[in-house]
């Protein structure tokens, strides 16, 4: 119980610092804007086509009924089709999340050196606190700040997308697309941000000044991108995305894809998928990530014990 309270106390203070010092928050806002804009690029450039497609011509109505489709299915097809465009954009824009892998370590690697800079390192180690609890608190506090900003940016994305859709085609973003982006954030974004935060925070034990930590932070960022891309890359060579996004896309279905499937007589996917990956590969990715995290945390802990008697 005491250990949990200690970890939470450090995490809470670190969370506060992340907002007062600003670097992780600013980077997350920039990454959020970059990814959000990327996700909207394709739907927005095609919006005029969708606008004109919202009402059917008599020829279209005839063609539509020839396929055995009902007229009331058409608005669903259009609404979900626009949603699918947003989802499709993640194929093009997901790699922009790698900016977080590159830049977050630079912003978060200073969390531990800050205690040396402020001189709080000395008395912190005289409290009944272990190095493991200290590391856990620092990591969780920084991650919490990163995730709060990420959640705000996700909310902003939904708000902007829905405002644009309501003012142009008078639809909300489809529930399928909304669910996809929530899944993408939780299953794809959260592990990526957690890794980027850990890759920055934990190596911070090696440095005693913030200035000394910045360049190594950048190197860690580059290594993180390399690690992520080489270890978790999807089987499709044309698309720079990780296995989680690939898995979510291969399992994405909407009202529009169901109608297309009815017309074409085959299952529709958004990724021109030739090789299917199962949940096993995604779980393997998480396991590899967990192993890398535990290795990093273990090394940081050993360093504190050996070098700082903490």
């Amino acid at each position, binding site marked *: *119980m005491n250990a949990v*309270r200690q970890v939470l*106390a450090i995490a809470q203070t670190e969370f*506060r610092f992340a907002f007062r*010092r600003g670097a992780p928050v600013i980077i997350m806002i920039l990454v959020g804007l970059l990814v959000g804009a990327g996700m909207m690029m394709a739907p927005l450039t095609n919006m005029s086509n969708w606008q004109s497609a919202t009402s059917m011509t008599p020829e279209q109505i005839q063609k539509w009924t020839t396929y055995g489709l009902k007229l009331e299915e058409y608005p669903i097809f259009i609404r979900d089709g626009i949603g699918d465009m947003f989802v499709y954009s993640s194929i093009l824009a997901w790699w922009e999340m790698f900016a977080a892998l590159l830049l977050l370590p630079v912003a978060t690697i200073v969390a531990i050196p800050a205690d040396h800079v*402020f001189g709080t390192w*000395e008395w912190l*180690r005289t*409290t009944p606190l272990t190095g493991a609890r200290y590391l856990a608190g620092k990591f969780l506090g920084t991650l919490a700040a990163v995730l709060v900003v990420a959640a705000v940016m996700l909310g902003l994305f939904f708000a902007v997308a829905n405002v644009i859709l309501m003012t142009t085609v008078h639809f909300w973003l489809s529930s399928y697309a909304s669910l996809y982006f929530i899944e993408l954030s939780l299953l794809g974004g959260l592990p990526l941000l957690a890794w980027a935060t850990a890759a920055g925070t934990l190596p911070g034990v090696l440095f005693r000044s913030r200035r000394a930590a910045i360049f190594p932070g950048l190197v860690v960022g580059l290594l993180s991108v390399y690690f992520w891309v080489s270890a978790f890359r999807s089987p499709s060579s044309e698309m720079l995305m990780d296995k989680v996004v690939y898995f979510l896309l291969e399992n994405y279905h909407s009202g529009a894809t169901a109608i297309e499937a009815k017309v074409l007589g085959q299952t529709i996917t958004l990724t021109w998928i030739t090789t299917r990956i199962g949940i096993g590969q995604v779980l393997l990715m998480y396991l590899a990530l967990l192993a890398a995290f535990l290795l990093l945390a273990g090394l940081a802990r050993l360093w504190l014990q050996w070098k700082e*008697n903490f």
Partner: protein
Amino acid sequence: MISIIQLTKTYGKKVQALRGVDLEIGSGMFGLVGPNGAGKTTLMRILAGLLRPTAGKVSIFGNNITTGKGKLAVKSVLGYLPQELGLYPDLTAFEFLEYVALLKGVTDKKERQKQLVEIIELAGLTGDAKHRLRTFSGGMKRRVGIAQALLGNPQLLIVDEPTSGLDPEERVRLRNLLAEMAGRCTVLLSTHIVEDISQSCNDMAVLHQGRVLFRGSPRELIEAVRGKVWTVATKGEQPDGGAGIVSTMQLQDGVQYRLVGERVDSHPAMPVEPSLEDGYIWLMQQSRLDQA
């Protein structure tokens, strides 16, 4: 209560900060005095669990501080004020102290609030508790340092050079506070200001070049130098002989020296009542002579 046996600390291969220190420290206020570089801070940092000793044994309240378990047990009853106290400038004094209380294991909210209110008042910070620490003066920061050390009802309070840089009023106030604390727990005061020891400690040790030169009460050190302290008035020239100069005072027609050591023959010398400072200077002088 605190048992230090043959404690040695070597930095790198050459710098020996502590050379086989043996000390037994009981309850009350214990003063550790010595010149800069004597090894006081190293000893304090070892006792606080910050440094690993190179050799020797340290036991505090029966806990061996070289083991992880023992170190954690000591830290749970420890209050520590380092020589240079770092604070988070972005936090208010209250936020900072609450943070320290949580880290020290004061998890019960009511108890934490009670302790915070009491200690903030004791440290004279009541009016400033809601202000950010970056706005605090040196003396106020030192009081925050004392407050954080007192949180969690420590059984052992280690204070390293607490009065350096304080104005006389703050120094007296701090000394009184530490003396009051000595009634409740063991206080280890490290300083190079002899006056701090003479005013508040009933037990002390003098450390020099990593070795214990003296171990006893301030009264014993004063008695050791009785009959060896003199005042000598000269026209301005320094008295001959090996006596150490404790103080110099300019007079209208010359200079008056306070000397410690054997009687000076070149000038008329008046024996005076020794002080702890005289005893300390005499010890340092003897140490240098032994080395020569």
